[in-house]
């Protein structure tokens, strides 16, 4: 751990750990707050509420961490004598560890809630993993939680890679292209989705595309490991492109 990479990794973990701890706290307290609110508002007759935001939370966490950290870390680490490459590799590793910490912590919290609340409570703690792969009640065990944690980790890491890619893209693009893309992409989504859906529905090429997507979806849903493999590959791809963009970027102060 005495290489530049090792020290850079330690530095980043020190930073990320604070964010991880905050997320753990939030994930622990929010369902409890929801329950309290439900009881407070409607008493014992409150309808079932469910909280299934855990995988999404890990994903969002990864995305934001990936986006925010790239340039800031490259700057500080360069000032402290770390090459771009080592800093980048430290990013990749630290983001993976952070995603793992969050995913595991979240799974533990979910497990505790379920154990404490039992099956007849008004608050249903579930998550995407359960919904897709191992529905309750079979999916309530520790094994399922562990597998869910693994998948969440990969989701978080892949989204972190996406975040880094976006950050690197904006870093390298000139102001003109930054504005263009920032405007064009939302516009394309808003105005392009209706025509796209029509195309998918009406043309044979469109329908074939839908079939292919559906098949892909079934593949992903068939086993968590399929999804994990695909996400890992995507994450690696995003990181690879990020590195290519990063290699010749100019490290400059924020202002």
């Amino acid at each position, binding site marked *: 751990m005495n290489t530049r990479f090792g020290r850079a990794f330690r530095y980043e973990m020190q930073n990320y750990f604070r964010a991880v701890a905050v997320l753990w706290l939030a994930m622990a307290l929010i369902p409890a707050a929801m329950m309290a609110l439900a009881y407070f508002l409607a008493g014992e007759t409150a309808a079932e509420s469910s909280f299934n935001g855990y995988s999404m939370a890990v994903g969002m966490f990864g995305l934001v961490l990936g986006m925010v950290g790239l340039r800031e870390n490259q*700057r500080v680490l360069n*000032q*402290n004598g770390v090459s771009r490459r080592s800093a980048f590799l430290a990013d990749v590793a630290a983001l993976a560890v952070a995603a793992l910490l969050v995913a595991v912590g979240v799974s533990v919290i979910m497990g505790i809630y379920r154990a404490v609340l039992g099956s007849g409570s008004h608050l249903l703690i579930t998550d995407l993993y359960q919904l897709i792969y191992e529905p309750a009640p079979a999916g309530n065990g520790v094994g399922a939680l562990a597998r869910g944690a693994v998948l969440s980790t990969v989701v978080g890491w892949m989204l972190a890679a996406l975040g880094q890619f976006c950050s690197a893209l904006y870093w390298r693009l000139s102001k003109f292209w930054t504005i263009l893309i920032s405007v064009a992409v939302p516009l394309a989504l808003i105005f392009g989705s209706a025509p796209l859906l029509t195309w998918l529905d009406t043309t044979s090429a469109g329908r074939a595309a839908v079939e292919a997507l559906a098949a892909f979806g079934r593949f992903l849903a068939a086993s968590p490991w399929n999804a994990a493999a695909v996400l890992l590959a995507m994450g690696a791809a995003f990181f690879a492109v990020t590195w290519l963009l990063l290699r010749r970027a*100019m490290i*400059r102060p924020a202002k």
Partner: protein
Amino acid sequence: MAIEFQHITKTFGDTRALEDVSLTFEEGKIYGLLGNNGAGKSTLLNILTGRMCQDGGTVTVDGAPAGSDAALSRLFLVGEKNLYPDDMKVKRALDTAELFYPDFDRAYAENLAKQFELPLNKKINSLSTGYGSIFRIVLGLSVNTPYVLFDEPVLGLDAQHRDLFYKLLVRKYAESPCTMVISTHLIAEVADLIEHTVIIRKGRILQDAPTEALTAACWAVSGPAGLVDGWAAGRDVFASSVLGGLKTVCVRGEGTEDLPAGLERRRVGLQEYFISLMEEEDQR
């Protein structure tokens, strides 16, 4: 063991920031990298520290390519701007330096902070220009790397703090010699400090010589214009100025021979030499 620049070129758009720059910074000397704003000093240092890539040529630090871990861990740049995260406190920056630079002297750094009255608990981005410079100076003087680079280190510093900085720099260098490169446009202040002078103008190296060699070989001779012209004919004159009938020429030469009556001679200080050199180049 040295920092070596070989035929470095760098272009920004249609501006040639650096043109065929070859330089060596040897170990254990204090170098002055002198030039006006925009001459290319910062670009050179940014390339050295891996913050930007050169278009052509190579830069190595003790043989390792600039920007690599081996190269970067051997140097520290006290730059013009802050690269630390906005919300980081000074204290945390010291912690970080301690993490990355094994020879970082924490006690010395805190002592310096006290001397400059730099508050350790303040956020870096809330420091004034002067204290931002002081913050970076404190780090630079405490890392104890073989090469320390100062890019306009005294920006915003009042006279007392500037004096303190130069004294600390000299003491540090005297007690534990390393290579220091001071890049500045405040020439008079560093003239006596730098053992070796590099003058850069519009991306090209104009002079690269021991300071003593430059200043010992330059003289200002003045007197009645006619006399001066007569004496200066055939000599290496690099600047001249006229005030009424009194003419002064700057010549390169030994400066030891006797002058004809009516002519006076004095040494040319580094700043004056620099200014004259720039004027001569401007007229080309």
